[in-house]
């Protein structure tokens, strides 16, 4: 999953650094992810993982902090959607 997130960041994150060099816990804002690019990243992640981030998840600033935090949120969402 982390590899797929990295591909989305590389394609839509408009980062000044190569997304493939980012560590799982590296802060994406510090790496140059703007709020504008983040919107595109969110939409691309929804398409990639066939899910919709609810408002409660978008509200949490920690959701899109790092590749690792995005992966955690997506795992939670996929698990809860599978359960329902």
């Amino acid at each position, binding site marked *: 999953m982390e590899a797929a997130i990295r591909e989305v960041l590389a394609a839509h994150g408009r980062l000044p650094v190569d997304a493939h060099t980012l560590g799982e816990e590296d802060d994406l*804002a510090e790496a140059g992810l703007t709020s*504008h690019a983040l919107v595109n990243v969110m939409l691309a992640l929804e398409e990639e993982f066939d899910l919709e981030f609810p408002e409660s998840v978008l509200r949490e*600033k920690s959701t899109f902090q790092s590749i690792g935090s995005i992966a955690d949120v997506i795992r939670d969402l996929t698990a809860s959607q599978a359960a329902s």
Partner: protein
Amino acid sequence: MTTNGQIQTTPRSSAELLPLSRQIAQEVAARAAGDVDKHARFPSETIEAFSEAGLLGALVPIAMGGCGATISEVGESVFTVAQQCASSAMILAMHHLQVACLVRHGDTPALRAYLEEVANLQLLLASATTEINIGGQLRMSSCAVEPTPSGFRLEKQAPVISYGAYADAVLVTARREPTSASSDQVLVLCTSERTTLEQLNEWNTLGMRGTCSSGFALKAEGSMDCVLPVPFAKIVEETMLPVSHILWGFVYLGVAAAAVTKARQYVQSDARKHPGEMLPGATRLAELIVVYRQMEAQVRDAARRFDAKRHGEIFATWESVSYNALKVGASWSVLDVVNRAMGICGISGYREDSPYSLGRYLRDAHGAAVMVNNDRIIKDNAHLLLVDREEL
């Protein structure tokens, strides 16, 4: 704004803000407004009157020597000034916005001490958020905070620093370090003693002429604790975006109110000459009031919502969207109101030498859409709405 005049030494209570603002607006700003507009000059008498009345620290907490006012209270103060001189009101709005950023995010000993000075010495703060080659994109910087043995050095080519030549300090956006990404920004307090400003151009515009928003090459030095200790992105979201749109909203509401006042006076004067007749202007005035009251409700509601929010509480996407919508809405409404007033006052409103002249309001009102361009704000909202899932 340090002056030679008598400075109010006991802190004002926020309850005094509105009556004193109204008095200064009517006695000082109203008299100077025509000259300020004609010569595109700084409204020094109005800003000095606010300084002498001890009101430039309106948003500074009481414990730090300020008035501890809310954004609604400051908004009403700005509104009352804007009815007489929109440029003066805009300067005060921008100053209060900088103070709000320091109050809410300036948690270092040096910045706290400076806030006390803002209240005690009645200092005027300006802002440099735009940059040559970056344009009006608030969330990108090219210049960077460069560490030096004694603190930092910062150089910025700013296409606009409103009233920069008259300010005691400028809050400047820059990249965190020379190696930081263009979006990894901080906000830096640059005080006039350690800052030089070389003017790059003149401010000669259609309206809002007294804001003296010339471009400057800024060179500053300071200690590292003059850098606000949180990312600029957080300051924008929690303070700069909402407070700027709210206070600008009050400025343009004041311009609209001034035009409504002229239209109403015109209709009433006309009605006196034609007793018993239903004049077309009277009907148009009734329609104009619909637009004005909608604008007023939108501005005051946004201020109340902001004041009701706990500091530090996270702003949802829909809140940023609604503050952006407020700015665009106010810019549409103010022009609509002034245009309708022109339709009511007719040639008397069009003339520059009549008691019903509307020319300055019309010119100032056009600033609302182009100063921080609506196109950019609409684009931001178009983007944000793609991930806004809040129930309406």
